């Protein structure tokens, strides 16, 4: 085990997969000579050369489609979006080409591609650079959507995503790149897609959290323990396919659930999770499912407003106390 940052864990995953498979290549804005806008791709150009690590022009639709085309004939592209905000320009190729190619070709062309980069809120970068787009991509059959919250998950899930034969949207979190965690040293360490992880065991209330909300939920759980409330924190890690069984098993144990996310509430992944819990564990619920979401507004710039827009420990603590009927 080594203790490294999420940034380093992602870098290791990319390095190991580039070394393992000649068909893997990495492309995106500033990934090569600049070493990555967030340094996730640091040193990879030096190690693998310009054939495998490619700086692109700022042309998201173009290079995303180029990646999908390359994946049609045997390559395994890893396409970095400097941030997922820019993937909006590329959605035609991600959705209309990558997600649907296998189906509309009657099973002839699978698309082994990873679209990765930071998503969600960042540090005071305002509306166009702070948005959680996972529910967009998770909506479409044909795509898998992955959101790691720890260094080990980041490495193990990215390696699995690169080895997967389908398009994977892999959403990192800019605020979390510096977070540290223990990661196994084994170069064959992977984490399977579609398996949720119980980040903390508990008995009174389940908190379902992903990405940025996982460390926030864990902090809330610590505070709540002081208040005599035992929380279980479940991280789905993969949004599509969603490991609802693990979530439902936890809810059946605790009978109370809070779903926390930094995205907008309308049509969100949290809305989907809440619905599935209702469908599958209604009789086990002792309180309505409580959702905590980002504010339903474009992200503001001012620091105080930004803080208000992103769920924090206090809001999760209050939500847990609410579903536990403690206040």
């Amino acid at each position: 085990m080594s203790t490294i940052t999420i940034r380093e864990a992602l870098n290791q995953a990319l390095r190991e997969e580039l070394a393992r498979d000649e068909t893997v290549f990495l492309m995106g804005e500033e990934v090569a000579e600049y070493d990555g806008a967030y340094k996730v791709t640091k040193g990879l150009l030096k190690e693998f050369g310009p054939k495998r690590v490619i700086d692109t022009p700022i042309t998201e639709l173009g290079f995303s489609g180029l990646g999908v085309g390359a994946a049609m004939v045997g390559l395994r592209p890893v396409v970095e979006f400097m941030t997922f905000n820019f993937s909006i320009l590329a959605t035609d190729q991600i959705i209309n080409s990558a997600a649907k190619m296998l189906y509309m070709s009657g099973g002839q062309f699978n698309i082994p591609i990873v679209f990765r980069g930071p998503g969600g809120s960042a540090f005071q970068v305002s509306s166009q650079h702070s948005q959680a787009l996972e529910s967009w991509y998770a909506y479409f059959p044909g795509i898998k959507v992955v959101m790691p919250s720890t260094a080990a998950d980041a490495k193990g899930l990215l390696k699995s995503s690169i080895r997967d034969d389908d398009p994977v949207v892999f959403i990192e979190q800019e605020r979390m790149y510096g977070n540290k965690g223990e990661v196994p040293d084994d170069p064959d360490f992977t984490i399977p897609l579609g398996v949720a992880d119980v980040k903390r065991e508990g008995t009174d209330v389940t908190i379902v959290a992903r990405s940025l909300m996982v460390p926030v939920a864990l902090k809330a759980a610590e505070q709540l323990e002081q208040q005599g409330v035992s929380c279980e924190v479940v991280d789905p890690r993969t949004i599509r396919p969603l490991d609802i069984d693990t979530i439902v098993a936890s809810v059946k144990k605790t009978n109370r659930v809070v779903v926390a996310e930094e995205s907008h509430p309308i049509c969100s992944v949290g809305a989907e999770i809440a619905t599935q819990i209702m469908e599958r564990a209604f009789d086990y619920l002792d309180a309505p499912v409580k959702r905590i979401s980002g504010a339903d507004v474009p992200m503001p710039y001012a620091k105080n407003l930004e803080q208000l827009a992103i769920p924090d420990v206090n809001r999760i603590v209050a939500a847990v106390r609410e579903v536990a009927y403690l206040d």
Partner: protein
Amino acid sequence: MDPPPEVDQQQLRRERDKAKERQKNRLSNTGLTIDQLVELYRQMLLIRRFEEKSAEAYVAGKIGGFCHLYIGQEAVGVGAISAIGKEDYVLGSYREHGLALAKGMSARSIMAELFGKATGCSKGKGGSMHMFDKNLRFLGGHAIVGGQIPLATGIAFATKYQGTDQVTLCFFGEAAVNQGAFHESLNMAQLWKIPCIYICENNQYGMGTSLERAMSLSNISEKACAYSMASEFVDGMDVLAVRNATLRAVERARKEYLPTLLEIRTYRFMGHSMSDPGNYRTRAEIEKYQERDPIKLFAASLIEEKLVDDKGLEEIDRKVREEVEDALRFADESPLPDPEELYTDVYANPIEPGPK
């Protein structure tokens, strides 16, 4: 509204004669055998007859959805694809039945796809706009205008990455030239030396909107200079002109990995799709181009050069009609997709979520 212009028959004849003369000159130094030349004719005729029967089947309710016919544009697909090999890749837009036939896909597999049958080239899941054949390297049928252009660029990128000398032909209509995908792709292709040949089938209308109403610079081949890319303007009613221009582009791609933009001026004799009455074009304009019908033009040249006689052409037509009738029968008699097919082919690695 102005009355439609009179058709100047003399002028039409003069233009047709000039086109014939040009084709005659090309015919004398193609380097093709008589059989190969006749095969070009046969392919064009097969596409024509196939599309005519598709239109009938559409009207009869056998084909659903959209159906964009290739009638009038046959020389573009046949001429260009005759310039590449089996190992090379072809992609098109939603007007791709003819391209699929020219790449060697069977009339049966395409007609069955149009009929939404399990024996179709895409198992009945793609339809008119999504023909695919991995073995024959026909990589779709893409239905968002311009969407295939970055894909083709990526396929050509991959062949270079893999160290082969394969080329990729990317067909699209002139309306796709206004999409960002076109410009983003051409920029990357020239910047990175990607062996993709961009074939703009300029049929002069994006659905019902004429080129002049939609494009500030309507000489499309000139746009290549914005990317320092080689380009040519080609007569799309002359199958040999298309073939020769494509051969030059293929050589550039194989030897130097360089892309080319070909603007091939053509004309669709039918509406944009089966549901288009075509009120935006005059009868005179359509007749002008029908006078230069690429199939009639080529037949006349072959006969004048005594490469084939009327009887030979009739025999080809008979065989082609038989092939299309056979395809219709095959499509009609083929089974519908199994209902279980609804949920297959969504993922190559379907994952049953949850702990293993």
